[in-house]
């Protein structure tokens, strides 16, 4: 309406007619750009929901650093609950079973099978949150071409960080099913640092759950993993506080946990920008233990440790080094 009003206004003044046309073209181009961006977000939104709401089976290959593992997945949504079973096909037959947000991992280690319990999140292809607002605040999304992945036609999307505090992603989304077929993470040198991609995928429409159990090896011992001591922590510490966090990152969890080899409990805080997570560990330095200072980037994981007052600070996550360094440096020691 606004465009028409402006154009008709300019039209009525004949000598501005040419100017009016140019203005109209420019505004249409802007509008088309905004429309494709909006379209791209809709495709991504659909992918976020489809991973939970569809029932499918297939094989995807997970690649990180020098390692690569094929994984067989079967995911069922029966209208009420979600079930999935993921089996690593090469090497030791690790199995990851999830029911809603509860994940149980059957992890073969030597002659034992260790049963680990986890809180489920980011399990491929459900790596996106269904609420994309946080991602919209920190990333820009644009449409790419279409390409064939796992014998399916896919729309390519580019998700780039608005700053240097996050990695870039390239997504391939199934045009028919809306499901995420492939996700690749790139560092700032545009090198691929992680890739997960279906190479076989089909929908299932059978609600039976016979398959939802681990394959049991009667020759192995099944044991629960050593108690993971982590309890939620809502207290404000008298010893430290956080100043400015890196842009776009917010705290999602705080707990007190034991860390192997540490005699005192450690505060563990988790931050996220909607897609990537950073862990921050804060602990009093122990007498006789050397304080640790350092940084490292291995594959997709960055690490930064620092000392503030009497506190040992450790930050790490699947983000660029600048982000973990800023998180580590946000800790202020209270005397």
């Amino acid at each position: 309406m606004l465009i028409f009003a402006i154009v008709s206004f300019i039209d009525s003044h004949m000598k501005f007619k040419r100017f009016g046309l140019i203005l109209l073209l420019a505004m249409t181009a802007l509008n088309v750009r905004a429309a494709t961006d909006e379209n791209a977000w809709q495709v991504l939104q659909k992918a976020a929901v489809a991973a939970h709401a569809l029932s499918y089976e297939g094989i995807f290959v997970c690649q990180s650093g020098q390692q690569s593992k094929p994984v067989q997945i079967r995911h069922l949504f029966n209208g009420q609950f979600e079930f999935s079973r993921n089996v690593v096909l090469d090497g030791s037959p690790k199995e990851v079973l999830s029911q809603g947000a509860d994940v149980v991992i059957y992890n073969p280690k030597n002659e034992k099978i260790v049963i680990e319990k986890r809180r489920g999140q980011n399990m491929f292809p459900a790596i996106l949150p269904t609420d994309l607002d946080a991602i919209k605040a920190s990333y820009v999304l644009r449409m790419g071409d279409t390409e064939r992945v796992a014998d399916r036609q896919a729309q390519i999307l580019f998700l780039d960080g608005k700053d240097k505090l996050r990695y870039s992603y390239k997504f391939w989304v199934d045009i028919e099913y809306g499901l995420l077929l492939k996700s690749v993470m790139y560092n700032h040198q545009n090198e691929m640092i992680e890739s997960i991609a279906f190479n076989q995928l089909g929908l299932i429409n059978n609600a039976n759950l016979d398959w939802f159990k681990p394959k049991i090896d009667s020759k192995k011992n099944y044991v629960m993993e050593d108690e993971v001591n982590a309890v939620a922590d809502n207290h404000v510490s008298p010893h430290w506080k956080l100043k400015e966090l890196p842009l776009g990152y917010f705290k999602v969890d705080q707990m007190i946990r034991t860390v192997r080899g540490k005699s005192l409990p450690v505060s563990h805080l988790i931050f996220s920008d909607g897609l990537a997570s950073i862990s921050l560990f804060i602990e009093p330095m122990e007498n006789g233990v050397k304080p640790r200072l350092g940084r490292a980037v291995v594959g997709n994981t960055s690490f930064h440790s620092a000392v503030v007052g009497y506190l040992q600070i450790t930050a790490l996550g699947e983000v660029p080094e600048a982000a973990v360094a800023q998180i580590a440096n946000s800790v202020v020691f209270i005397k």
Partner: protein
Amino acid sequence: MNEQISALADNEIALEDAEHLMSGLQSSGPLAEAWSQYHLIGDVMRGTQVLSPSFKQNLMAKLDLEPTVLAPNASLLKVVKTKASSVEAHGKIPATWSIAASFAGIMVVGWMVLQMQVSDSLTPVIAEVATPQTAATNVAAVQAIPAEYLMAHQASAPSASSYYIQSASYSE
């Protein structure tokens, strides 16, 4: 045999039909082990709370840490006992007894408060903390990601690939 034991653990075999299994479980070590493992797997699948493998050791260690409180309980018992016997004998309690009981009560509470203060001062966290001088002079420089922190991170904030791949090589 293992399949039958699995079925028995899942309540899919009637108890009357399972006598041979029961005797098997009692006589054979491997079968008894299979029985407890099927239950563990079942408990995990159903989300039943499972005690950690070191539960017993932890409990015993915590019991060992508990202070051995002998005197106050003994005096408390004595007071209660004498109160009870005097009630039985005379039908009513003399006033001096209730004064004595109150005094004993105050002593017990006071003693407990004292105990708590003592045990508090026994765990001075700040005393174990290093001084800034040692921090400045004696520093470990690290170039690899310490495994214990990486494991804690992946347990509480797993990334998509960390379920299947140990995402970074790390120092043990």
